[in-house]
């Protein structure tokens, strides 16, 4: 008779294969990372530039990033985009506070022809006036639209208070768009793109000639600057509320400055983070969604910067349960400080995290991303073996100790919008 009441035997994960990409020097400061083991025709190429939003006047970095394919003296933006599309390429450009990244997705046979088009478009970028004006108008519209979202309002107020008076805490206002000028854009571009390439990442079954050509095409952009990132940021504690008329939900952001992968408590803290709010069965999800029904979702994360990092809790809740939700968040923090996590809950989280790590290492794309998330800190894949060790050895006492150290309600920045 089939026993449906009991779970089938669970087998532990025996080992995870971590595969390192090959590394080539483009220049003394810029490296190319190459993951060749791709069993199909897909290819991805990322170009990282030292051109994040903390650089330059407010807003400039983001506009330059949005204008990279806006045309040269010889070619219009329409021509450039059509050439990429003719080769079946997908182009994305994105920006964070410390980096700007261009990504190309294509079939293997087309990656170099596409890169040639993009190389020319960037090398000869002309900052044509009507293109700049068009982007400013588009961004202005988008900004107004975002200001209608409680999540956006809460996020920017949180960023401001979390990063306090550091360069990371700058937030864009509508009138910042007025001060964007073509000379400023050109200057930023010259310094941080044409001389700002910090790394190249290639995933795809390419040959050595292809890699050599990629190095040739991008080599002259190699970064010459050694950017210094801030490392002593302190978040502003306590609360702030942004009023948004007519909102039916309130967005909540709670967090504090923490640390990145280089800190000795990082791996253990990730386990505490998972228990607290980073999986479907977490303390916060179980209490605030699955028990009270206050929200569609609530989650926590550890975000990393070059020299530091931060911890964040984010949710959107019914507007009449904002205070009740904050009270429960505080309650769950304190519970982790005063009560030991049960062995069963801890075992579940350990197994879950090992499963997630297995998934993060599955396939050439995930594996490359996993490597690229330790590389900025001069760590290598051994970091993940240490993570496994940390998962296997952590105790309820250690979790409690970390909660007492890092999850104190009074240390948190607390922001809501609604």
């Amino acid at each position, binding site marked *: 008779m089939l026993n449906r009441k009991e779970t089938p035997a669970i087998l532990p994960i025996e080992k995870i294969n971590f595969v390192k990409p090959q590394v080539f020097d483009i220049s003394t400061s810029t490296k190319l990372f190459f993951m060749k083991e791709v069993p199909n025709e897909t290819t991805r190429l990322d170009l990282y530039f030292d051109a994040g939003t903390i650089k330059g006047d407010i807003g400039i970095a983001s506009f330059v990033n949005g204008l990279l394919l806006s045309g040269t003296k010889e070619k219009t933006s329409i021509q450039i985009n*059509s050439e990429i599309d003719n080769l079946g390429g997908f182009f994305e450009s994105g920006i964070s506070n410390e980096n700007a990244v261009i990504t190309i997705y294509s079939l293997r046979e087309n990656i170099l022809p596409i890169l040639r088009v993009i190389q020319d478009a960037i090398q000869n970028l002309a900052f044509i006036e009507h293109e700049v004006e068009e982007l400013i108008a588009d961004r202005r519209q988008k900004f107004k639209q975002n200001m209608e979202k409680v999540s956006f309002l809460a996020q920017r107020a949180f960023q401001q208070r979390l990063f306090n008076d550091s360069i990371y805490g700058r937030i864009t206002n509508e009138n910042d768009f007025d001060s964007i000028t073509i000379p400023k854009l050109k200057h930023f571009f010259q310094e941080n793109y044409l001389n700002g390439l910090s790394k190249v990442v290639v995933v795809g079954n390419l040959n050595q000639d292809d890699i050599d050509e990629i190095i040739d095409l991008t080599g002259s952009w190699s970064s010459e600057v050694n950017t210094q990132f801030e490392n002593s940021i302190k978040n502003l504690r306590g609360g702030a509320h942004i009023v948004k008329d007519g909102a039916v939900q309130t967005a909540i952001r709670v967090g504090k400055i923490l640390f990145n992968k280089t800190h000795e408590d990082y791996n253990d803290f990730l386990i505490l983070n998972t228990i607290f709010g980073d999986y479907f069965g977490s303390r916060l999800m179980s209490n605030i969604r699955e028990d009270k029904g206050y929200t569609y979702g609530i989650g926590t994360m550890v975000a990393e910067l070059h020299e530091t990092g931060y911890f964040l809790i984010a949710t959107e809740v019914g507007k009449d349960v904002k205070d009740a939700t904050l009270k429960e968040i505080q309650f769950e923090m304190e519970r982790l400080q005063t009560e030991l996590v049960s062995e069963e809950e801890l075992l579940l989280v350990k197994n879950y995290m090992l499963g997630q790590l297995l998934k993060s290492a599955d396939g050439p794309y995930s594996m490359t991303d996993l490597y690229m998330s330790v590389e900025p800190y001069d760590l290598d894949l051994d970091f993940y073996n240490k993570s496994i060790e940390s998962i296997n050895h952590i105790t309820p006492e250690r979790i409690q100790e970390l909660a007492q150290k890092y999850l104190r309600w009074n240390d948190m920045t607390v922001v809501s919008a609604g």
Partner: protein
Amino acid sequence: MIKFERFKLDNGLTVLFHKDPTTPLAVVNTLYDVGARDEVEEKTGFAHLFEHLMFGGSVNIPDFDAPLQMAGGESNAFTSNDITNYYDVLPANNLETALWLESDRMLSLAFTPKSLEVQRNVVIEEFKQRYLNQPYGDVWLELRPLAYEKHPYKWATIGKEIKHIEDATMEDVKDFFHKHYNPSNAILCVAGNFELDYVKEVVEKWYGPIPAGIKPARILESEPEQLEFREKIIERPVPTDAFYYAFKMPERRNEGYYMADVLSDALGRDKSSRLYISLKKEQKLVSEIGAYITGSMDQGLLVVSGKLNNGVSFEDLDKALWKELDKIQTHPISQDELDRLMIKIRTSKEFQEQGLLNRAMNLCVFELLGDAEGINTEHEIYHAIQPSHLQETALHILKPTNCSLLKVKASNNA
């Protein structure tokens, strides 16, 4: 080429197995042939609410997620107007844990009042978060009933109104389960590094004893042919005027579906598309514009949507848009343009099939369409498309009497 094996259990469950020797993970994907189109108009949002309840414990297992997490796995689901799809991803050596959990909730649910009460609230918050508390969030709640008069596509998966979710009773929940959740109404796909015999053995072990059910007959109100242009204007506290032109297009199992798909790409997939170049770059009428299809099983929609630039009127846009739509009806597109659309389709497909979960899901969808092998032959349908086909499709679809237009007017207080 995605290889798979198919077998059927005596109780009617269709099982697909896709072997991937390169991954340490397993995927268990379960597609139930039920979506929001199977609801009655007085009780909408039900298929989706029910999806939430499927995580609230089954007849023998009080909690769905915890045992899966204990086995190193995770799970999620989604509901559309057509289907409800559940998936589990976990380390391959714990495959049976997922089969145990999924088979038990196919057998029967726990139906606890607490779960219903909480998930009602969660879904109401989801309704607010995604549809009410976002600029333009309620567009599909307005556009669907404009485009469809009879067919159940006239309501959104989340439901017509919050009240329908508030009013859901345990009786409703049980009826819904008994009607739609049984082996003959489901397609299961197991993917990972296994042998077929093993998969057969463990699937038979966990699913074999589930009693057979009856696949419910689907009798939907058919949508009468649209004979007139429809237009609705709504005012919202948004910063920018927005437009949504929705054209009826053929159902999923029709060649015309693929033609409409490519047609929408030509009009507005990317920055080399016709509407982007003409209306945004050249005439500077819009800040954004795109064209896409809803991908529906029954008669769907090809939608052209975007936002107006400041100072541009809906009338200016309307004139320029119809001029472009007229062009694609009167002049066949060039072979170069068609080649460009095709290589983008091919590239996206290659990337989509990278992931084990995507492969498992798509196999189930193609099986629902009639044959999982469709996953490997679909590109032939695309490749057979000629410029003349697109012109005919455009003539047929892109006409005012086949169009429902929703305008979102920015009210002054924005």
